[in-house]
């Protein structure tokens, strides 16, 4: 792989410069992001906020190596996403990104345990003990053999969180993870986020929820594909993590 990161983890996990994304639909084009520039350091808890259609999901897609920017550069954990091949981006998603979806994204034909093990399976790893430990961490040990349809929304989201952790990725983007949950369940999930962030994970949460946004140590506010206000960087530097994942 090109531009291999230093063996020492760089303190800056994400470096975005003039990041733009233009969607093309036939002859129509939609500019969803206009030259966004920012940095995210390892161990930060960042909330991405903004009105509907402002480009939050688009940005998260780029940060999760799910898509490539139309212009600008994005360095993710030392890799230049735009210059990576298809399989390079797959590797990046597999080992460095643990995505959490608003709609949980559990595979209905697989049990909770199998869903959690899925990213490890794609990485050709099989660690049943780690999977059950993760299930205990998110409080789903007793539901391991349930199918997603047999779970509550909160349980589904906790299963999805366990799944996002299984390959021990340093980056942890979540698109409205509490959007489909009630307040109380949302707070439980938030508690989980804070715990994981305290353990050194870099958390990026797209949210409309002010409670969650204020729990973050930094906020990126998007309006029509542009970052609003002065991005002063982290208000307080969280403790330096021991290492990546």
């Amino acid at each position, binding site marked *: 792989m090109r531009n291999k990161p230093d063996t020492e983890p760089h303190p800056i996990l994400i470096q975005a410069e003039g990041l733009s994304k233009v969607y093309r639909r036939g002859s129509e084009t939609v500019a969803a992001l206009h030259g966004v520039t920012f940095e995210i350091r390892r161990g930060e808890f960042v909330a991405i906020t903004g009105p509907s259609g402002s480009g939050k*999901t688009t940005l*998260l*897609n780029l940060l*999760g190596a*799910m*898509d490539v920017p139309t212009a600008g550069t994005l360095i993710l954990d030392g890799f230049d996403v735009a210059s990576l091949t*298809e*399989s390079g981006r*797959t590797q990046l*998603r*597999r*080992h460095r990104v643990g*995505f959490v*979806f*608003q*709609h949980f*994204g559990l*595979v*209905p*034909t*697989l049990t909770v345990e*199998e869903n959690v093990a*899925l*990213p490890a*399976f*794609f*990485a050709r790893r099989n660690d049943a003990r780690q999977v059950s430990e993760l299930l205990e961490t998110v409080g789903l040990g007793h539901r391991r053999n349930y199918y997603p349809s047999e779970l509550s929304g909160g349980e589904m989201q906790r299963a999805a969180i366990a*799944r996002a952790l299984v*390959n021990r990725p340093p980056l942890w983007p979540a*698109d409205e993870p509490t959007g489909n949950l009630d307040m109380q369940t949302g707070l439980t999930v938030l508690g989980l986020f804070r715990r994981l962030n305290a353990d050194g994970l870099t958390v990026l949460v797209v949210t409309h929820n002010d409670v969650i946004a204020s729990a973050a140590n930094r906020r990126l506010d998007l309006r029509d594909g542009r970052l609003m206000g002065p991005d002063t960087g982290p208000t307080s530097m969280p403790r330096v993590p021991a290492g990546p994942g």
Partner: protein
Amino acid sequence: MFRFALRNLLRRPVRLALATGGVMVGISVWLLLMALGDGYRAGLRTELDRAGIQLMVVPLGCPYDAAARVLKGRSLETSLPSEVLGRVRSDPDVSLAAPLLIVSTPREDERRSDLWVGLDDSGRALRPWWKAAQGAGWFTSTNGFILGSEAALIEMRSVGDRLHSPELGQTFRVDGILSRSGTSDDSLFFIPLSAAQRMVGQEGRLTAVAVRLRDPARLREVMQRFQELPGAQVVTMTEMMGTFLRLLGTVRSLTIALTLAACVVGILGLLNTLLAAVVERSHELRLLRALGASRSQVMGLVILEAVLMMWAGLLLGVAMAFLMGLVLEPMLQPLLPLAPLDHLLDWRLVRLLQCLIAGVVGAFLAATLPAVYVGRLQPAGALTP
């Protein structure tokens, strides 16, 4: 991966059943046809080889029909002129000439006919496989008779029984009962040639003369000489076999063409099923890409599903072919000329392997388009429901 693919398939049981059902029918028809062809060919060969005769002198008319009837033990309306036997026997190239007369006596009450085959002592030499299950293997008197194993069962006769024929004013005695041979002999009544001729009240009447040559290489010359016999014609066994095999060949190529067409339809059906399944699941497949599945991993999943589906159809098809074979074998036997009586269907491992290979290739073909579709799916869509 395997379990995942299996669950994906089981998610739509009706669709799975339809797709595998199509494969199943195609495969079973194919296997049956192949088994039938192989079995028929092999059976014909043994039946013709066993008697060790190279040619047969039959009355004028359709020679193959006549020869087939004689070999199956069915009566002929026409008969050979009486001087033919003498002329054949006196030919220097002939090592053995066995005359036979086949007489059919209708049994109105049972809606069937008994077939009596008249043989003289030379006929015994052409039936080296004859073994007596009971009594003697050959006639002990001029009014003795020998029963094929099935004929004996139907008639409920045993050795020593007497049978009076009022039409003929004659009493026959059962000399022997043959053990089962798997040939047409099993269902026949054998009597001495002279007795058969007395039955039809015509001294010297013959249905055919089977001929064994001293040197089979001189077949051509002998044929030429026998062509001149008045009221008779000659059929060689190779000719006969060739004719039947050609007939069978035509039927087979036709059915093979049909089966191939069915296979193409089956593959298209499978393709349709897979494509529908993949389009329907595109969101889930994008999600797998987002979770770190490579392009080849999701494509592999789709191909695995196709192969699984195909193999399920194959295994069921093989089972169905055997079952259908069990049912169809006895039904087909009377319909085919010279069908071997014991095993009409010859199951061969090679055919099975051909099917399995064809199945896997077919599955890959059917999976190609859906796999390409899946390979193009980008993970970006996974975030939006």
